[in-house]
């Protein structure tokens, strides 16, 4: 009987050794965007996506319908109620494909919102930084970032 149990134990060990113990990774947890009242991607569409190989970053520019329409028209006229959101991630190698890079830690979320203000349209810009999405208080360079984001040509999505 003892021999039988030893044999059983040996078989169990062998089976365990043969089973694939590689944990199955299902989500890109590093790149996950924290939920925050400071921004909202729900209902926004993809305007374009780009990477910076020097900095090793990947970005996706989202927009509401008005923003997408304006971007396709070259953002020549800035109207009210447009929302642009540019999310930038660090990149990481894709474990599933040698030859690919995928997003990693969130670097920044930049939000542009336009609103009518009297006869004009006010353009509000906010930059949220890092995983905690801390509001960047240094406002220098904002005009440049607005110009950069509004200058992005939409991706062809036929």
């Amino acid at each position, binding site marked *: 009987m003892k021999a039988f149990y030893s044999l059983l134990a040996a078989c169990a060990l062998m089976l365990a050794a043969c089973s694939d113990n590689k944990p199955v990774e299902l989500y890109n947890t590093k790149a*996950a965007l924290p939920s925050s009242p400071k921004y909202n991607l729900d209902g926004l569409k993809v305007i374009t996506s780009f990477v910076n190989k020097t900095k090793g970053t990947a970005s996706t520019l989202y927009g509401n319908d008005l923003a997408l329409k304006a971007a396709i028209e070259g953002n020549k006229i800035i109207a009210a109620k447009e929302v642009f959101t540019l999310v930038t991630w660090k990149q990481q190698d894709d474990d599933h494909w040698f030859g690919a890079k995928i997003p990693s830690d969130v670097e920044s979320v930049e939000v542009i919102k336009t609103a009518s203000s009297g006869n004009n349209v006010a353009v509000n810009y906010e930059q949220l930084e890092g995983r905690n999405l801390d509001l960047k208080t240094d406002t220098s360079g904002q005009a440049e970032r607005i110009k950069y984001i509004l200058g992005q040509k939409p991706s062809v999505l036929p």
Partner: protein
Amino acid sequence: MILFLGFVGIQFVRPDVPNPPVTGDLEVPADVKAIVQRACYDCHSNNTNLRWYDKIVPVYWGVASHIKDGRADLNFSEWNKLAPADQKAKLWESINQIISGAMPLPSYTAVHTEAKVSPADLGVLKNYLASMVHNKPADTAAINAADKQYQHWEKNETAIAKLPTAANGIAYIPDYKNWQPISTTERFDNNTLRVIFGNDIAVKAIKENNIHPWPNGAIFAKVAWAQLQDKDGTTHTGEFKQVEYMIKDDKKYASTYGWGWARFKTPKMVPYGGANVLFTNECMNCHKPMAAEDFVFTLPIKH
């Protein structure tokens, strides 16, 4: 005795495994070639080297069928029949099949131990492929092609009246662009940028941790554009290349891993594979190493 006679008898039931002429062999540096020959050539070339133990029926039947399928999918002896871009794609796909452990077939290396790809071998192959990657600003031709396509699209001239349908019955789904992106990819192996969109069912499944397996009705659309690198180092989406769909239905698509596969190329949405439904074999072969992840490469980003 009867068993033995039967065993001897079936030895004469032999499918033919000829070695057709080599039309144009793989051309790579000698060290790379040596590894590929050792690990792949028995099934992926016209220079199959059958050992005596491969020729014993019934093992031989399996061997013969592996060689037939292997050559049909990838044949290094008829390398010249592939366009340069397809050759490159095949090499990157091959190394990824090796990395994932899908190739060489474990059942094959169990007997032909010399065909195993060691970590050092893999390093040689990786270095060779990495050396073929070049980053340079887009040339005028690429910029002009992208501009021309953009202008057509911007004026809504790419709108399609009748939805093109792939040979397996899957039609192009124009609504994909209104779905949520679940990830993006920079593919430096083939100079494309990609956005992977998920329909409402897919996005809900991600939020609810219900993607293993993915629920029926989940659809992905993976869009690929040529890379267009500007002088500042930013790489933008250039020409639209294709949109690919994976549609989950474990009953309807039971014979193709539970997914319906389709690829539509150019803004005209030309179905890949034409009238030949066998194109799905290509999709399945490439996705097979992801069986434990329900055949999905993309790791979705939650938000």
